[in-house]
């Protein structure tokens, strides 16, 4: 549904994207993960035709955004960076105005989008009195008119409180489940991406360092934290020490056997704690390992 090929972009000599390619399948929720400045928003900007790439191309449903922007964007809704509204107008007026740039959208469709995001009771209030959460919901509502095949959500939970994050997450999942929407979302919040996304792409300093499922990111290795009196003994046994007090064993290896060898070598093993790899650990490993 969404495909980007070898995107490159520099801003005033600073490399923002360096040969980034990935594909989002129809109907999946795909996460674009990376720290601030990793190139997530630049990728979104290129996908929406708001940023011109130095090289490469972006496609939506097989249509090139760079060559046929209007036709390509006809099938997507989007939130790009911090949503800006005409604060002196009502939420409803904002929706009408933004929707008109996509064509004639029936009133019923606008009302449906408002209902989906739960703003029915407040949609005729001026946007200037909206909370941050309500503004984000309005941003999602405008992305849903006219009902798209895919939505591009750039940091959709940015600045929301925990309840707001939960509601937004539920909404995105509901839209994906009930309407089959393809979702591409960017975030620097690992937990959010882990809970929402089927697959992820991880960007670091403009480079793609991983694309795939979380399980693929975790790999097959198993990690344990050891409370050991003498780590030189572990070195001597050629154990793979991946962090202070943490070893990684190949899949299938038995930790009991490792402990026995350590004890035989004269080490005192005071405790063994299996570590389930957290997303944070995996992410940090990946980002720090990248050149």
């Amino acid at each position, binding site marked *: 549904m969404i495909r980007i090929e070898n995107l490159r972009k520099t801003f005033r000599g600073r490399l923002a994207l360096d040969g980034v390619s990935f594909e989002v399948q129809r109907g999946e929720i795909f996460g674009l993960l990376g720290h601030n400045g990793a190139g997530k*928003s630049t990728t979104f*900007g290129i996908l929406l035709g708001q940023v011109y790439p130095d090289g490469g191309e972006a496609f939506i449903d097989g249509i090139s955004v760079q060559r046929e922007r209007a036709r390509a*964007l006809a099938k997507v809704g989007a939130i790009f960076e911090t949503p800006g509204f005409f604060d002196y107008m009502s939420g409803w*007026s904002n929706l009408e105005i*933004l929707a008109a740039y996509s064509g004639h959208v029936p009133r019923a469709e606008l009302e449906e989008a408002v209902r989906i995001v739960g703003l029915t009771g407040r949609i005729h209030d001026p946007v200037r009195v909206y909370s941050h959460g309500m503004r984000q919901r309005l941003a999602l509502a405008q992305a849903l008119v006219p009902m798209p095949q895919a939505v591009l959500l750039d940091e959709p939970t940015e600045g929301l409180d925990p309840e707001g994050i939960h509601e937004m997450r539920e909404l995105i999942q509901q839209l994906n489940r009930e309407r089959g929407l393809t979702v591409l979302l960017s975030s620097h919040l690992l937990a959010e991406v882990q809970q929402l996304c089927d697959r992820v792409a991880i960007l670091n300093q403009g480079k793609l360092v991983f694309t795939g499922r979380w399980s693929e990111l975790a790999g097959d290795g198993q990690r344990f934290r050891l409370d050991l009196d003498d780590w030189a003994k572990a070195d001597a046994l050629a154990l793979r020490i991946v962090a202070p007090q943490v070893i990684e064993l190949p899949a299938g290896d038995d930790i009991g056997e490792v402990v026995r060898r350590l004890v035989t070598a004269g080490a005192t093993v005071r405790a063994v704690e299996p570590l389930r790899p957290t997303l944070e650990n995996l992410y940090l490993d990946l980002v720090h390992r990248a050149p």
Partner: protein
Amino acid sequence: MPLLLTQFRHELRKLFARKRTWLGFGAFLAVEVVILALLQLPKVQRSWKFFLERAGYGFDQYFSGITLAFQILIWTVFLLGGLFVALVAGDIVAKEVEDGTLRMTLCRPISRVRLLLIKYATCVLYTFALIFFIGLSALAVATLRQGTGGFFAFQPLQGLFALFDSGPGHARYLASLPLLALSMTSVASIGFMLSCWNMKPAAATIATLTYFIADSIFRSIPYFEDIKQWFLTTHIEAWIHIYRTPIPVEQMIGDYAYLLAVDATLVIIGVLAFQARDFKS
């Protein structure tokens, strides 16, 4: 076509939903009343009386609503007209970029050129609405205060000294409004062009006014008399020729052709600059 009109209507809705737009109209009305009050001062009336009677015309006949409306129109447009047109045109793109609303708009399948042309049309319509408002409200308040009568069109800086009976005077006055609006469209075009570049809305407005004022000042310096035709304000003043007898039609056509060419050039430059920009904070 109807979709284009819908988008244009929404663009106007955005502009006229702002309190500032209406406050502007209110400010013009206030300035008109102040100028009218100043023109009623005995000292001012004495000098007008002296001037008219020395030329052999009756003060009571020509110191009328339409005469005062003309003075109010010139002074109001000079004091505030350029400022408000520059303000709206300078804001029309740059403010939306600053507020992030343009990013939302550009997530939509609308071409940048189409969006800009809608915005420019909005600027032009606002300019016409503003000038018609100033002209008609000036005529209304002046006529209410001074009544009807002959029209003494006097503007020494442009060498204008003309007298008309009430009917033809009103016809010339009303005909001058669209011409003045067309002239002021060039100010809007400068503001619009600058607004398309990567600059703050206030900077676009200030730069527009700076150009407008500098152009007027340089044009009035005798040293530049030979190249007067190169100054934009020379052509912007073409509207005042409608009060001359006979009306220099050919000169006016030339002036407005020049202004329209300048407007078109400015819009094209603005569109090209906007088209080349990346939109990302």
